[in-house]
Structure formats: C-alpha cells, structure tokens
C-alpha cells in the first residue's frame, strides 16, 4: 500500500511536470498577447505595450518564461522562500488570490450540482434497473440520452427564458386558468402512472388519483395566495416529517415486526423534532449559522436519543434512521423558513426573484433566510443546467452496473436462501453496484475543480472556468497555469484515490 502510494506519487509528479511544460508552451503560442494593444490607436500605445511586455516577460523566449514560472511555483513549495504568488498576471497582480476566489466560487456552484446529480442519478438508475424494459425505464432512457446530447449554453438560455424570465412574470400575478390546471393534473397523472406502473386498472386508478390531487392542490394554493406568501407551516412540517420517517424506515429497515421499533423511533423523532422546531420559532428571525448549527445538533441528538431508547434489539439501526429523520426535519424547517422569506426577497428584487446571472442580489442586506433564499435562487438555474447533463451519465452507469450485479450468482443465492427483496436489493445488489461508480465519481470530482466553463460564462460566475478562459483569450499564461496546476494535481490525486478506494471496496483487488 505505502509502496503503491509512493510510486504513484513519483510517477504523478513527472506526469504533472511534463504536462505543465506542454500546457505552458501551448498557451504562450496560442496567439499574440499584445493583440488588443496593437489595435489600440489612442494616446499611450507605446507605454502600454512596454508595460505588458515587461509584465509577461515577452522579451524572454518561451522556455525561459516557463522556467521563470517554475521558480514561482517553487517558492510555494520550498519553505522560507519569497511570498508564494504563482506568478503575476498581465496586469501585475498576483495569481494566487485570484485562484483562491475562483476556486471558492466554483466550489459553491458545482459541488451542490454534482452531489444532487449523483443522488438523483443513482436513485433513478437503481429504479430503472429494477424495472428493466418498463415504460418508466424507456422514458428515463429517452430523457437521459436527450440530456446527454444537449449543449449546455442552449439549455442555459432556455432555462433562463422559461424558469427565470417567464416564471418571474407569472409570479408577479400568479393565476392559472382551470383548463391549464386540468392539463397540469393530467401531466402529473401520466408521470405518476409511468413511475408506479402495474396493470391497466391500477395505472388508471393511479393516474386519476394523482391528477385529482395535483389539480386540487393547485386550486387551493392559488386561491389562498400561496404563491405570493408561500410556507409549509408547522402542520406541513409535521405531516411531511411523518411521511419521510415512514419512508426511511420502510426503505432502510423494512416494515417487518422484527424492525418495528425502528419505525416507531423514526416516527417519534418526526413528532418530537416538529415540536422542537415549533418551540424554536422565536429564534428563526435572528438566525445565524451558529444558532442554525446548534439547532441541527440538538435535533440530531434528539433523534439519536429516541433511537437509543426505543430501538430495543435494533438499536443501532433505529439510531441511524432516527438521525436521518431528524435531518429531514431540519431540511423541512429550512424550506419552510426560506419560503417565509420569499415575500421580502420578492419586494427587494422588484418582483423578479429568479435571477439569470450572478451569484447574489447586490446590497440585499437581508436576514439569514432572505440572503440564503437569494443565494439559492441564484444557484438554481446553473445547478439545474449542470445537473441535467451529469444526471444522465450517472443514471446510465448505475443502471448498467445494477443489472450486471443482479445477474450474479450470489444474488440468486441470496434470493434462494429466502432473504426478502428489500434486503437483496439494498444490501446485496446495490452496494456491489456502487463499486464501479467510485471511478466515475472520483473523476467527476476532479473535473468539478476545473469548473464549468460554459455554465460559468452564461450565468456570470467568476470561477475556475472564467479564470481559464479569460487567461487563455488574453494569452496570459500564469492564470491559465494556476488553473491547470489545480486540475492536473486533482486529476492524478483522485485517480489514485479511486484505485485505493477500489481495493477497499472490492477485496479481489490488491494494490502493489
């Protein structure tokens, strides 16, 4: 293991070194860094050209410039050297702070999208594999391939038009004709039918129930002005928390008599959690990350305590699932509070809360919930754009991997020895199906650090992608190299981590 890591590290170092040299030369040769100044015919042309030439060391041949850059990187590695700047850009500003800002901005944008796409993609992939060749499977396959082939800039423009501009216009006066409510109901009915499946009679019942429920809910929501002043309310939190508590127990513990305590613990946590949230309402207006964190800890502790007390012989599982339920209550509470912050944000943004660009509304100076709702609404569109595309690949990989494992002998053995379907799927199939995904996730997270070039440009985020593209278009090598250093190191590092993870997950693999 240790030998493996050392050997990989040494090899990786030379790979990164060689690739930086190649990258530097390619960037330096990609155009004329003085282009914009040569086109300029105002006063001070010569002074500007001289300044840029000095800043970029254009009087030094390219290999010499690369060595200068290596020296700059060297000061960051060697202790006690000069200040680490990763070099200066063409306006003589240190690159390291730029990298800092860009990396932070990219993290905020891409991590949420990647995690959400991973969760959603895996869940959908599992369900499609379990119901191979059903209408649902075909629909998801169709949508996955559609998303896979969509150009990001085009999706982004459509998202901006429909989910920001048109939705904002609708939100200014939320009304719907009964015909469109009915149509939405039918669409919802159709989706639920496809998701749930079954014989003709059941499909019909599901479609009817879902259509009626959706239309009815919409009518009620529109009539009470919910779209102007949305909220879940304590009752909403309570009901949703109970439903989720039931769902987590059914999914991860099963509803057999043996695991009944898990269900009871989880339901009790939902009720107790809602009571805590209700009692904590006075805190909400003055919420900070500190009080929020404290509240989260209190709720998780509550869940763990209830699981411990009620769990009986399934104590460990009960504690885990109760904690998950407690986290669900936190999420529901946050959704409720964010919804309650909506009218204030609506007013502050001149009635157009969904943003098409930027990362926050300037000078909002709102409360904890208002600011976070604003950040969330700014993140919504770019996240959706990134998700749509990576979701597709996760779904396909998970489905293929699940199908592969489900046909293994040990899964048949598990079924033959009488394990119930939930245990076979969750414990024997799903876990093993996740192993190949480890590679994919490792590479994707390395890719995350590179930012989403197109998405960042379209949605006005100055992250890693922007650092790279603006550096490249200015023929300014140092910012591009800073970008490249991070992505190159991340790639070799995550590649190595994926290999190590493989060895842990799959005992058949040995690292040498």
């Amino acid at each position: 293991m240790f030998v493996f890591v050392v050997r990989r590290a040494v090899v990786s170092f030379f790979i990164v070194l060689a690739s930086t040299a190649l990258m530097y030369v390619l960037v330096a040769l990609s155009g004329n860094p003085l282009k914009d100044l040569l086109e300029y015919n105002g006063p001070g042309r010569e002074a500007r050209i001289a300044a840029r030439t000095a800043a970029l060391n254009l009087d030094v041949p390219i290999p010499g410039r690369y060595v200068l850059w290596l020296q700059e990187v060297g000061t960051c590695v060697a202790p006690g050297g000069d200040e680490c700047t990763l070099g200066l850009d063409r306006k003589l500003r240190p690159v390291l702070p730029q990298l800092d800002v860009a990396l932070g901005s990219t993290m905020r944008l891409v991590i949420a999208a990647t995690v959400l796409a991973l969760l959603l993609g895996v869940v959908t992939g599992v369900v499609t594999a379990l119901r191979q060749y059903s209408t649902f499977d075909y629909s998801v396959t169709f949508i996955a391939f559609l998303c896979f082939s969509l150009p990001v800039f085009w999706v982004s423009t459509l998202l901006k038009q429909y989910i920001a501009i048109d939705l904002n216009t609708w939100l200014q006066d939320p009304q719907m004709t009964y015909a469109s409510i009915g149509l939405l109901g039918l669409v919802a009915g159709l989706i639920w039918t496809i998701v749930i499946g079954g014989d003709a009679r059941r499909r019909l019942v599901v479609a009817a129930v879902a259509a009626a429920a959706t239309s009815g809910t919409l009518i009620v929501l529109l009539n009470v002005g919910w779209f102007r002043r949305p909220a879940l309310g304590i009752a909403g939190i309570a009901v949703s928390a109970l439903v989720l508590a039931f769902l987590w127990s059914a999914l991860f513990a099963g509803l057999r008599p043996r695991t009944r305590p898990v269900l009871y613990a989880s339901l009790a946590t939902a009720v107790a959690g809602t009571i805590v949230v209700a009692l904590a309402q006075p805190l909400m207006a003055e919420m900070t990350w500190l009080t929020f964190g404290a509240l989260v800890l209190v709720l998780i502790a509550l869940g763990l305590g209830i699981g411990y007390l009620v769990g009986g012989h399934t104590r460990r599982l009960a504690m885990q699932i109760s904690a998950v339920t407690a986290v669900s209550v936190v999420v529901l509470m946050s959704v409720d509070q964010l919804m309650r912050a909506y009218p204030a944000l609506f007013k502050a943004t001149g009635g157009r809360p969904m943003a098409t660009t930027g990362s926050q509304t300037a000078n909002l100076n709102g409360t904890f919930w208002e600011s976070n709702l604003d950040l969330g609404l700014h993140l919504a569109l770019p996240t959706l754009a990134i998700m749509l595309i990576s979701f597709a690949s996760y779904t396909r990989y998970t489905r293929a991997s699940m199908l592969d494992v489900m046909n293994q002998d040990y899964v048949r053995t598990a079924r033959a020895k009488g394990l119930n379907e939930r245990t076979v799927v969750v414990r024997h199939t799903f876990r093993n199906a996740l192993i190949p995904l480890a590679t994919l996730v490792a590479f994707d997270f390395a890719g995350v650090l590179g930012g989403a070039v197109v998405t960042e440009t379209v949605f006005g985020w100055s992250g890693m992608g922007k650092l790279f593209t603006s550096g490249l278009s200015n023929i300014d090598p140092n910012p591009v190299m800073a970008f490249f250093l991070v992505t190159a190191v991340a790639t070799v590092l995550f590649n190595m981590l994926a290999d190590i993870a493989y060895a842990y997950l799959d005992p058949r693999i040995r690292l040498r």
Partner: protein
Amino acid sequence: MTFRRRFTAISAVAAGSLLLASCGSAGAGTEEPAASADEFADTITIGIEQAPDGYNANTDISNSVYNAYVDNLTQQNFTKIQPDGTIVANEAFGTYEKTSDDPLTVEYTFADDAVWSDGTPIDFDDALLTWAAFSGTHPSGEVDEAGDPLDLFHAASTNGWAEVTMPEGEAGDKTFTLTFTTPYADWEVLATGFMPAHIAAEQSGLSADGDGAELVAAIQGDDTAALTPVAEFWSAGWAYQENLPELPDAALIPTSGPYKYDNASNGTLTLVANDKWWGEPAKTNSIVFKTIDANEMVQALQNGEIDQFDPSNATSDMVAQLADLGDAATVETGEALSFSHIDFDSSGTGVFSDVAVRQAFLKCVPRQELVDKFAAPINPDAQVLNLREYLPAQAAYEDVLADVPTAKDYAEVDLEGAKALLTGTGATLPVTIRFNFSAQSTLRADQVALIKASCDQAGFNVTAVADPDLFTTLTLPGQWDAAVFGWAGSGLIASGQSIYVTGGGQNFGGYSDAKVDELWSQIVAVTSHEEAEPLKAEMEEQLWVNPYNVVLYANPGVTAYSSKVSGPGYNPTQYGSTWNAETWTKSLS
C-alpha cells in the same frame, strides 16, 4: 396484484399528494399596494462586460473601458465631453482660463467647496501629483529594452503633459497654472485624472498634514527617494483584483464626484450618493455595475436584473433580440467613434505603391453595399464614411466634409473607371492583391468576399488572407497589400498624427505625402478646434487626392435600457453612456 404492491403504490401516491397538499396551510396573502408613478427606485443597475480593474484608470496596465464608466460618476474633471464631442466646462469642479497663447498658459482654479468624499479639500497637491505622474520627468534610473529611460510613475500616456513645466504654487492653493513649452492642441481636455494626493502621501510614509506640504515639497524638490513609494502606490496601489471580488479599504478610494464607492463582490460594484458632493445631487441613491457576459445582457435586461447596457460589439442578432422585448426596453442606435477602413501597403514595390492602382481600388470597393449589409442592420441611419479625423457622430463632420470635394469622386462604384485606371498603369490584368483580415472575425471575412466580388470585375484578383495575427503582419511591409480593420477616433485634435505622417507608428503602409506631413506639423501646433478644422479639411482632401486608405463606415453602436429608466442615451465617446448617469431616474411602476 398482491396486497403489498397495491399498498406500496397507494402509499406512494398518497405521500406525493400529501407532500404537495400539505403546502397549502398558509392563509390567503394580501395584495401589495401598487407603487405610484412619481416614486423613483433607489437603485439603477448597469450591465458592463468586464469588471473595472482599478481606482486609478490612468496607469499603463489599466485599460478597461469600464473604468471610465465608473469614473464618470466618481471623478470630476474641468471639462465634460458631450456625446457629439463638444467640450463643455464643468463649473462645479472648477474653472479654467487660457491666459496666454505664447507660451500657451492655462490657469485652473478648483471650486472653493471641492472636497474628496473623505472631506479633504481638492487643491494644489492633487494637481501637482497629477503633473508629476503624467509628465514623465521622474526617471527611475532603469531603462527598457530599447534603452529608453523608465519613469517612476507608470502613466498610460505622457501625451501633452510632457510639454508642461512644473506648476508653481504652495500646498493648499486652490489655483494652479499649466505652462506649455510647445503649443499643445488638446490642452482643453488635458487636465484630467486627478488622484487624491493625500492618500498617495499617507500610503508612502509622507504626512498628509498641511494640505500635503510634504508631498508638494518632495515633488518640487525632485526628491526621488521620497517619490519612489508615492509612484509605486500611484501605479499599483489602487489596482483591483481580477473580476473585482472586493474593493480596497474604503479610506483609500475617496471620490470627487456625485457618487462614492460602497462595496463590491464577484464583479458587482455598488456606488452610493456622495454625501460630501458639493454640486447638483445625484437623482438616484445608488448605482450598481454588474459584470455580465456580452451575450447574456439581453436576457438580464428582460429579467430586470440590469436597467441599462451598452454592447461593446453590437450585432444585428442582439438588435433583433432587443426589438423582441417590445415596449419593455428602449433601444437607441447611432454611429460610434470608431470606423472600419481598408489600409494599403503603399510602400516599396507593392502593387499599391502606384497611386493609380489605389485610385482604381477606391473606385471598385462597394462602400454603399458594405454599409447596407454590415452597418445598416444595426443602425438604420448608417452612412458611407468620407472622412477619417471627423466621424458622423461629431458635430463638425458635415462642415468639414463640405471642404473635401474629392470624396465625392468616389461616391459611386465605377468598375469601368477602375479598369481604365488599372490598364493605364501598364500592369498585366488581373492585378493580384493579398487582402488580409483578422481570422477571428467572420464579419471581416464576409466583407472581403463582397469586395472581391466587385473588384475582381474591375481587373483585380483579390486573394483573401485570414490572418491569425493581423497587427503583426501589418508591421511587415511587403507581406500584405490591403487589410481591413478598425480604428477608434479619440475626438482629440492631434492623436491621429502617427497614423498619417511619414514614418508614423501606425502608418503601417509606409504612406508618405509631403503635403500631409506639412499640414500635420501645423495641426499639432494649433490651440483650438476652430483653428484645426480648415487644416484638417485640407489634410483630408489630400488623403483622397493621393489616396491613403478606403474609409468604409463608422461602426454602428447601440445602447439599450429598461423603459422604466429615463435619462440614458447613446453616447459614442470613450466616456460611454454613464456620462450623465447621475441624472437618471427609474420609476417604480
């Protein structure tokens, strides 16, 4: 269907519907009272394509045009340039008076109540620092590649200031005098770029007490040791980070205009009304500059995230998208202060060294068609350009054009005439032309194709050369014959000199005409626009008689703003549309 499956199905539907239904527990909302029409918004947001890169926009590394957009609101000067290029004195900031023509002497007086937004009066030390920074009289002792001495201050340009002797005066004076050793035509717009000297002094270990007496003494005594840190701070200390993640310490960036800096994050800069501003108060309390990619401006305007923007490179697609917004947005188009033209390599033994070949080419270029295809779709009023030093956006254009009769000779495409001229040179037809254009521009490629279609009929054989590095090729005479590109007009009297005179830095084609050279030597010595006009008209005439280039059209420009905003308009000068943004208002309804 087993019971379990049905149970699962029904519970799933129930769960989904419940989740939705449970959302309805809130009571009915009340309608917000509608804003009345005479209420104004607190903030106007302006879309810009690049974040400003520094508080001091006058250094040799700061070149973002968007610095000027901000400076319009935060920095005052003795003059204000109007959209048509005329110069209007800015009495709020101070007054100036030309007291002598020989030597050219101008006396400036800061307004009595003029103060920086931190309360420090604007006075002599600010003026003296400006002179020190721009005059290029403080050698650092180092030399550049060419062996020329470098200055302590990295000013963008010493143009004009280099002719000014050090202003006399004492710390605290409200008056200073600029005396020019040689006449300088654009003296009226020279006194700009005042930076707060007290900040530069404090940041460089000098005391700002006594109205900056220490700094004044250092400059007057030419104390290089004391001035070195001042120059370093002036040149680099006011720079912003890339993409403006935050502003420097507010104490370092006081302003002299109706707005002051408030905050910045992620490329979004907020200005608020300057409570120390002594002039006409700003109409809207805060102005926000938001950095947005050029292609995303229209949707941002549609969504109300920005209220106004000027595309740096207007396209007909963008104009069409803006038109689709209907009444929600107002779009104004006009002619920019930049123009497209075809340069000739008239040096050495190139085909265009012969005047007749240049004249023939002038006759075959379909200028009106180029305007109709490439400028008119954006600006319906676009016209064929006939002058170089005056552009249609400037008030004097028509007057000067009246004195340039030869321009009319080339008003129509004359293929027969072109062919006759070519034949007359004795050259074997067709005459092959290497026509270079920037490989990155599809617009230029289309234009060259159109010119080829016309000129090939007149006996030319135009070979289009898509050049990845056009401006390097241009400096290599003999490597090209003709090239199409753009120049920016500055509105200054003397700045075009290096394009047209023999040996000029941007005279890429090696054009040389004794009359043009002589006229330019007179033009740079005049001291007013009125004196320059007849000389320039004569020069323009000569550039047609002995053709220098083919001028095509003034590039079309666009400004777009929300119909809720009143005040913006199209401004082709380098100051951009925010030149009067302190008077803009935005209605709430």
